[in-house]
């Protein structure tokens, strides 16, 4: 569907098709009309339920037009992709890091690395505003922001021999840029890992079935590690299939475990108990040899991830469920139970991955640029893979919005807002205009094999219920609803724990890198005292925020997810600052709006959100107001301190990015006024042999 015109025909998302110009115009007119109709339907329907396929149609058409026209414009005019220019994969080919690779292989590799739990969780949380705000932000944010960021950063990294974002920031904006990029990455890692762990805690607390299944993935991963290392070296696909079968058995075994009292008591864990277990796991995953736990777990998670995302897409199309959530809820006024705050700015920081995620810039300037065979393929990999991730976010929106709103809010609202007792919770939620009954929730809990579904904040359980609803209606019926629910929960938890152990390790490497400047042995990644020290530092950092979330009477997600959203969007701000500076240095200032516009939007959103999170007088929104309220009521000193700490962390992030912005604007003014000489750090042009062979 997605296309660009080449000399030989029209390239449709990587495939070249020959089509008469008249037919092409007709096709794009139809796509545009269908997209407009679908967007009009989802935006203007009031008081009636709509089918999920309208969201899918709106998304597919928007992405198709965005890819066909906007990404082509960026490729041709802004970045001037050069098919004659050799990429570092070709020039520096070493068979290890730099390997010219088929564009579809790089596409798959890149997508597998960028697609994480973010596009599944953020849209579910944002569904408290209704399906409309999140859907529109996902579509507009991806086409004009996220896809553009991934695309331009990937190209700039390719033109700089695969340099990282931090290195490019240092080259383009100076040492301040490099320092801010480094500090932003570390901050976002710590907050991201804490949030990820909190989502798992909230999904698995008091759930012996879920806890058993996830606990079993650890010995399964270890077994896979030993199998790969000792029995079938390098046979990863085969090992992943075996691991997947074992995970399915573990899901089935989870039902037995939850029904066998002697076993269930060991897996019925409190939030605090689970948090401690995850902190210990994170430390072990960071310190253990990579082949033993991290690598096989990563393979298993990727295998499940790709399969389940495909299955969900098929399920939505086959089932084409009706959305029960209204387009807008009463919580657009900022009084939402899941997180407090109005649509602007909070919808835009709640959904980061799926619309625009700064974290992607790290992948786009990591391994991917070293695999790109031709510059012209960057459009498919950079822009195209983000389109696919954005589609995953749309599917998550559908999964959340197929639930009855009363059920959705009963699952996602913290006890601190709706009350601990079922009767009180259903009264509160029904009082909001979203009818739900205690008996209905009890029946739903039983059908998914849980003791209760009340107060399961974090988004994962609501997504799992929605996904189980879609799957069970297309395969197996209500009888297997519990299996599908736990499959969905396992899929998310596995996904999240993989981010947790990979992220902890990445954080450890970054700290080792920094400490190595102070004392060389600390920088040695194979020296065990250094491994243990730096692992402890990074785990203690995210573990502290996790503990804070677990002890928070409002469920933790209320304060930590916005903090994560702000950090992630600020990192995107850093990436777009770097990209804008490079575009101006390329003497293409007239096109700088391509990155400047999303940058301006992100700065507006994140700075406004940060202001609210620090200074808002509503204690549910402002950290300082909540600290004051707790202090007045003689509340727990630890909670008071945590709120003040969150305010300080938000303030530091904003200060860092402000510093980078000021430095960037100084650069831009200097360059545009001619006071500064534009020096790009691009590798010298070398003609490609690959392109010559082709042309």
């Amino acid at each position, binding site marked *: 569907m997605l296309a660009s015109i080449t000399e030989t025909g029209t390239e449709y998302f990587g495939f070249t098709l020959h089509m008469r110009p008249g037919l092409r115009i007709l096709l794009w007119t139809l796509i545009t009309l269908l997209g407009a109709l679908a967007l009009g339907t989802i935006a203007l329907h009031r008081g009636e339920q709509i089918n999920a396929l309208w969201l899918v149609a709106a998304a597919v058409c928007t992405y198709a037009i965005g890819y066909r026209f906007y990404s082509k414009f960026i490729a041709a005019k802004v970045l001037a992709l050069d098919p004659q220019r050799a990429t570092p994969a070709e020039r520096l080919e070493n068979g*290890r890091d730099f390997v010219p690779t088929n564009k579809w292989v790089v596409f798959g590799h890149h997508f597998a690395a960028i697609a994480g739990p973010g596009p599944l969780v953020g849209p579910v949380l944002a569904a408290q505003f209704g399906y409309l705000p999140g859907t529109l932000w996902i579509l507009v944010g991806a086409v004009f922001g996220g896809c553009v960021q991934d695309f331009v950063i990937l190209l700039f990294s390719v033109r700089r021999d695969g340099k990282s974002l931090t290195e490019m920031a240092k080259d383009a904006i100076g040492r301040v840029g490099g320092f801010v990029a480094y500090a932003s990455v570390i901050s976002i890692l710590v907050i991201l890992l804490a949030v990820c762990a909190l989502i798992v805690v909230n999904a698995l607390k008091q759930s012996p079935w879920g806890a058993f299944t996830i606990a079993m993935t650890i010995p399964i991963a270890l077994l896979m590690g030993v199998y790969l290392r000792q029995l079938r070296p390098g046979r990863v696909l085969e090992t992943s299939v075996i691991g997947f079968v074992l995970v399915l058995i573990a899901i089935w075994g989870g039902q037995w475990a939850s029904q066998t009292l002697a076993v269930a008591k060991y897996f019925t864990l409190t939030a605090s108990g689970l948090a401690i277990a995850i902190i210990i796991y994170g430390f072990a995953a960071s310190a253990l040899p990579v082949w033993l736990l991290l690598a096989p777990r990563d393979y298993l998670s990727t295998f499940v991830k790709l399969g389940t995302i495909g299955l969900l897409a098929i399920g939505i199309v086959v089932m084409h469920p009706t959305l029960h959530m209204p387009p807008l809820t009463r919580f657009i006024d900022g009084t939402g139970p899941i997180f407090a705050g109005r649509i602007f700015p909070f919808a835009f920081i709640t959904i980061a991955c799926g619309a625009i*995620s700064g974290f992607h810039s790290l992948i786009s300037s990591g391994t991917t640029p070293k695999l790109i065979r031709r510059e012209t393929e960057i459009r498919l990999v950079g822009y195209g893979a983000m389109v696919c991730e954005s589609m995953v976010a749309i599917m998550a929106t559908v999964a959340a919005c197929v639930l009855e709103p009363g059920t959705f809010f009963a699952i996602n609202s913290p006890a601190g807002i709706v009350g601990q007792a079922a009767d009180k919770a259903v009264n509160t939620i029904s009082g909001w205009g979203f009818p739900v009954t205690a008996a209905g929730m009890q029946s739903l809990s039983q059908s998914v094999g849980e003791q209760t579904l009340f107060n399961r904040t974090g988004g994962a359980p609501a997504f799992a219920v929605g996904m189980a609803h879609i799957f069970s209606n297309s395969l197996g019926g209500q009888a297997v609803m519990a299996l599908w629910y736990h499959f969905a929960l396992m899929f998310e938890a596995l996904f999240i724990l993989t981010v947790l152990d990979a992220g902890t390790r990445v954080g450890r490497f970054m700290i080792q890198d920094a400490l190595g400047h102070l004392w060389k042995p600390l920088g040695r990644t194979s020296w065990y005292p250094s491994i243990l020290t730096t692992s402890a530092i990074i785990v203690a950092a995210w573990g502290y925020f996790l503990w804070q979330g677990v002890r928070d009477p409002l469920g933790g997600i209320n304060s930590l997810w916005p903090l994560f959203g702000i950090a992630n969007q600020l990192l995107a701000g850093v990436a777009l600052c770097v990209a804008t500076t490079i575009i101006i240095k390329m003497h293409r200032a007239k096109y700088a709006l391509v990155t400047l516009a999303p940058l301006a939007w992100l700065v507006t959103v994140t700075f406004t959100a940060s202001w609210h999170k620090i200074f808002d007088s509503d204690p549910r929104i402002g950290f300082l107001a909540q600290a004051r309220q707790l202090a007045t009521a003689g509340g727990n000193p630890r909670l008071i301190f945590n709120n003040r700490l969150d305010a300080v962390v938000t303030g530091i992030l904003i200060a860092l990015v402000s510093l980078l912005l000021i430095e960037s604007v100084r650069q831009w003014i200097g360059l545009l006024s001619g006071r500064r000489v534009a020096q790009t750090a691009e590798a010298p042009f070398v003609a490609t042999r690959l392109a010559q062979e082709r042309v």
Partner: protein
Amino acid sequence: MKVIRLLHEILREIFEEAAYERFCVRNQVRRSKDSYFNFVSATAGAENKMRCC
């Protein structure tokens, strides 16, 4: 068939089987416990294992 072959190639790259094969060719070693251990150690850097949120 072409699509299936491509899909297989994508999976082999994602799951690092292709990278291991290249490692064996580059270092002129055969598939073995030791060569796989060396391969995993060589690719254990932060960059290779970066996973997004």
